[in-house]
């Protein structure tokens, strides 16, 4: 399948003084996808996305968005994109409806903001000054401002950072809905779970470099990270550790008291283990599996824990 790249980044480099924020990053964002940059704080995510948005001047490299140069063609480009910034604000006393009305006047094409209000759940807060909105409401208003020109491509920089889990889930639903409407989404996040749940493709970056770029499924599968099976034995079986270890899919077994953890990989791991236990008539309970996730991929690739 041939994709149409809406964002092309080649050898992007950004220095702040002598500090390297981004060194030699290249990637493309395809039309209609949700593309994510993930990585710990300070990895260069915001710098990268802000260079693509035309808000920062790269030290080197080439960026095209819809075939336009973000810095030179800023006016034309900004008509077609929506931007949610990681850190921004509005005047404290501006009311919700005034902000929507004001920002829609900045674009040559804009949708009726009244339609957005309902979708964003802001209908009861139209006369509320910005300073009096809750964190989640502010975030939703900023999503509204990013959608007000009916953009083809929308940037979300750390959209859910600082939100409670419930608000985060409702943000995810909103993003999926926006994507279903045919809009391309380019996001950054330091939540691996968020990237795994939302993104068609993710670029994992660390210390200003891309360390992996693929769909979350491929990243997890290709690294061949072990799955875990955990269960409790009802009774004592002396040889269970070595017996399980003889199975092809199993790489190692840990047993602590009556609790057994089986590590392995491959598609037959679970069925092999269950079949073995059944055929030997071994009774067990609390059986569960832990699949590797993007967090494991990150740990494997960078050798470090994600920091919040």
């Amino acid at each position: 399948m041939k994709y149409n790249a809406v964002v092309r980044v080649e050898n992007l480099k950004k220095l702040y003084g002598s500090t390297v924020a981004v060194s030699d990053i290249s990637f493309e964002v395809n039309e209609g996808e949700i593309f994510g940059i993930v990585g710990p704080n300070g990895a260069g995510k915001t710098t990268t996305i802000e260079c693509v948005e035309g808000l920062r001047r790269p030290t080197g490299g080439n960026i095209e968005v819809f075939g336009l140069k973000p810095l030179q063609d800023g006016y034309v480009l900004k008509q077609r994109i929506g931007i949610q910034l990681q850190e921004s604000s509005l005047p404290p006393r501006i009311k919700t409806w005034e902000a929507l009305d004001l920002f829609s006047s900045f674009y040559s094409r804009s949708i009726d903001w009244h339609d957005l209000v309902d979708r964003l759940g802001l209908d009861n807060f139209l006369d509320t000054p910005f300073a009096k909105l809750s964190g989640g409401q502010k975030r939703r208003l900023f999503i509204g401002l990013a959608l007000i020109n009916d953009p083809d491509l929308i940037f979300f920089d750390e959209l859910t950072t600082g939100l409670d889990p419930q608000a985060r889930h409702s943000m995810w639903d909103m993003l999926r809905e926006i994507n279903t409407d045919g809009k391309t989404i380019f996001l950054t996040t330091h939540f691996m779970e968020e990237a795994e749940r939302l993104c068609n493709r993710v670029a994992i970056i660390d210390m200003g470099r891309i360390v992996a770029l693929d769909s979350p499924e491929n990243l997890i599968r290709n690294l061949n990270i072990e799955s875990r099976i955990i269960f409790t034995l009802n009774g004592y079986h002396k040889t269970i550790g070595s017996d399980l270890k003889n199975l092809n899919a199993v790489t190692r077994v840990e047993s602590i008291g009556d609790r057994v953890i089986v590590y392995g990989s491959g598609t037959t791991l679970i069925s092999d283990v269950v079949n073995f236990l059944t055929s030997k008539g071994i009774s067990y309970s609390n059986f569960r599996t832990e699949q590797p996730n993007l967090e494991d991929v990150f740990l494997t690739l960078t050798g470090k824990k994600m920091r919040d």
Partner: protein
Amino acid sequence: MRGFLKLTIIEFKLFLREPQAAFFTLIFPLMMLFIFGSIYGNKPTPFFGGFGSVDVSVPSYTAIIIATSGLISLAIVLTSYRESGVLVRFQATPLNPLTVLAVEVIVLFTVTATGMALLIIAAKIVYGLRFAGNPLNVIAAFVLSCFSFFSFGFILAGLMPTVRTAQIVSMALFFPMIFLSGATIPREVLPNGIQKYSEFLPLTHVVNLLRGFWVGDGWGVHLKEVVILISILVTGVIVSAKTFRWK
């Protein structure tokens, strides 16, 4: 253009919702007028060259409004817009960033002019304000003084790292200026030493220029003030073009 008009309307509304700025620009000068007017009246006296206390106070209080708009309102609004990320939010739209600055100047110029108009109207009705100058000269002096002080405000907004420092520095400049420049207390009353020192305060030249034109002086007597105010204006434009940051 539509964006420019909407932003101007919003900024007017926001100005009026900010009680502090609106108070010092529109209400406080009137309070001063009525307090000192009720104490000293407006009888002509040789002490003020044949004019009354109110007659020379109206142009002087106008200088206070100009200083409030430039040093306090403009500098603090722009610094807080930058610090909180309002400017960068505008930057993420097709709006020309200079539009934001132009709108601030238009709004503050308009409220400053309104503050002066309120003073004149109140003084005329209540104290029979006298005027012996050429209105066009006074308007020209007012416009020059405003732009000179607004560019002073832009210098502060460019140099101050945070809103907190901007507030402190603005106040540290504002209060000595309004008390020692002759804006609140007529310079005739100030001791000689302070009058000398006040030559270094930009606001002194605004007061002298406005008061001079008010009582009928010509440009020739006030070239010094005009040159100083134009120099501040030009310096402000150059410095803020170099130092102003959007985030």
